[in-house]
């Protein structure tokens, strides 16, 4: 029996007691303090949390980009620390920065990505053609990325993450900085990718995004998971626990889970006057 079978095929992402400590000049920073998590195959899973809560650290550990201080993480059944290359073949990664080379064209970017995942030049070219159609960048495919809009870069970044047809797609704040129209386009892409059978693990700061896209979600705060469940279940739990008369929003769940209040959150925003 191989490792995948032992872990069960239903879990696309698993974390057990995941911990990340950084050494800094001020001492040891405990960015993630023991996270247990399971994401089922085929779902869109949202990972929420305030700034600095540990979202990006978690996604970087799961995608082999950060070493793990302790605990175990598996993606598609493969231990990311023990078999990083095996895990990388099963996952696609689109990080916050839309990591693209501005001097390459969209097509060159996709062909190169395909070659790095072992495709022949012909296979990589054919796959690039499929992907520019999927993310609707056919007309811009032979232009340099430098001239792309923010939304186009995000869609190209998504396409690069899909070159090798991964089982799990990690998206770190995929719509941060996008205008509302581009955001809706990325949502459509994410849904379409998921319908094709790819599990999606996304972090976001936008609760409406999590509500619109995610079947289940977890909220991390101060390096620990503080809520986990479907959006409907989390709202129902809050309504019942606080005996609310109206239906709470995901914002209310988030604020309750992270110990923040609306007035405190509003206080974080400084009004700028001329």
């Amino acid at each position, binding site marked *: 029996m191989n490792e995948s079978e032992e872990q069960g095929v239903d879990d696309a992402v698993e974390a057990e007691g995941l911990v990340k400590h950084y050494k800094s000049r001020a001492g040891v920073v405990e960015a993630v303090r023991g996270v247990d998590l399971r994401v089922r195959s085929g779902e869109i899973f949202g990972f929420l949390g305030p700034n600095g809560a540990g979202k990006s650290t978690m996604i970087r550990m799961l995608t082999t*980009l950060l070493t793990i201080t302790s605990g175990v993480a598996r993606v598609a059944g493969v231990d990311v620390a023990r078999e990083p*290359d095996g895990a*990388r073949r099963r996952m696609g990664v689109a990080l916050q920065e839309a*990591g693209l*080379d501005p001097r390459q064209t969209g097509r*060159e970017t996709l062909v*190169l990505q395909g070659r*790095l995942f072992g495709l022949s030049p012909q296979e990589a070219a054919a796959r690039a053609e499929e992907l520019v159609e999927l993310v609707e960048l056919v007309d811009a495919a032979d232009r340099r990325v430098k001239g792309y809009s923010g939304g186009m870069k995000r869609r190209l970044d998504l396409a690069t993450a899909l070159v090798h047809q991964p089982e799990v797609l990690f998206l770190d704040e995929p719509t941060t900085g996008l205008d509302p129209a581009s955001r809706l386009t990325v949502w459509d892409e994410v849904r379409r990718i998921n319908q094709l059978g790819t599990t999606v693990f996304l972090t976001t700061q936008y609760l409406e995004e999590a509500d619109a896209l995610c079947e289940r979600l977890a909220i991390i705060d101060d390096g620990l998971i503080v809520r986990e469940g479907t959006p409907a279940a989390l709202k129902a739990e809050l309504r019942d626990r606080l005996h609310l008369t109206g239906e709470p929003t995901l914002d209310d769940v988030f604020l309750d889970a992270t110990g923040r209040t609306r007035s405190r959150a509003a206080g974080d925003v400084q009004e700028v006057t001329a």
Partner: protein
Amino acid sequence: MTAWVLGQRALREAWRTPEALVPTLFIPLFFLVVVVGQAGKIFPAASTGFLKGQGYGAFQLPASLLLAASFGTAALFLVEDIEGGYFDKLRATPIPRTSIVLGRLIAEVAKGLLIATLIVLLGLVFGITIASGVLGFVLLVGLTAVWSAVFVGFMQLIALKTRSAAATNSGGLVFFPLLFLTPNFVPRDMLTRPMEVAASFNPVTYVMEGLRSLILEDLEWSAILPAFAVAAVLGALMLALNVRMIRRYD
């Protein structure tokens, strides 16, 4: 194989940024013209034994070639990759970490071959001859290109450690002492004793003497082999340190 694929990407990057490539050719030629203009009369070809019958420009050409090999622009492109997130995208692919380093070094060797060939050809136009013949010419540009990869390897270490363009640029200034603590104006046996000791500890000295030997003499393996040995050993060291740093990159 993946190293070559990444090397092609790095070459496209260089080709599409000519403004980063032009100074690599222009500054070393400027340096050659200025030094020969200032010191050429002190060392007349007819009465200066160490010139082996050539002008002072032939003696100075290795310093210009080494200067051309010390720009390390590839390391600055690496910082751009790190800052822009493309480096993480590469790290998330199942390729050997060696390929990530080698890709840029392969491109640097190719760029080094082009730049060194252009500088030497321009030298030929102005009367410098390559005494070691066609094989010597090939070894001359080859050694320069390999040295440029060694230097970029060093600058990439700074880039990976600091992730900062400013720090990488500043770190690259180490080429000044490395280039000038050498017998760059006169042969090593004519240096003052402290300078001779310093030059003897500087690996660049052996590369410079190898390059100079290829220009002024027939194939003199006692000077050529140490130059290639220094470049090979330091090249292997830089590769190993780069790979180690990428593996530990958090």
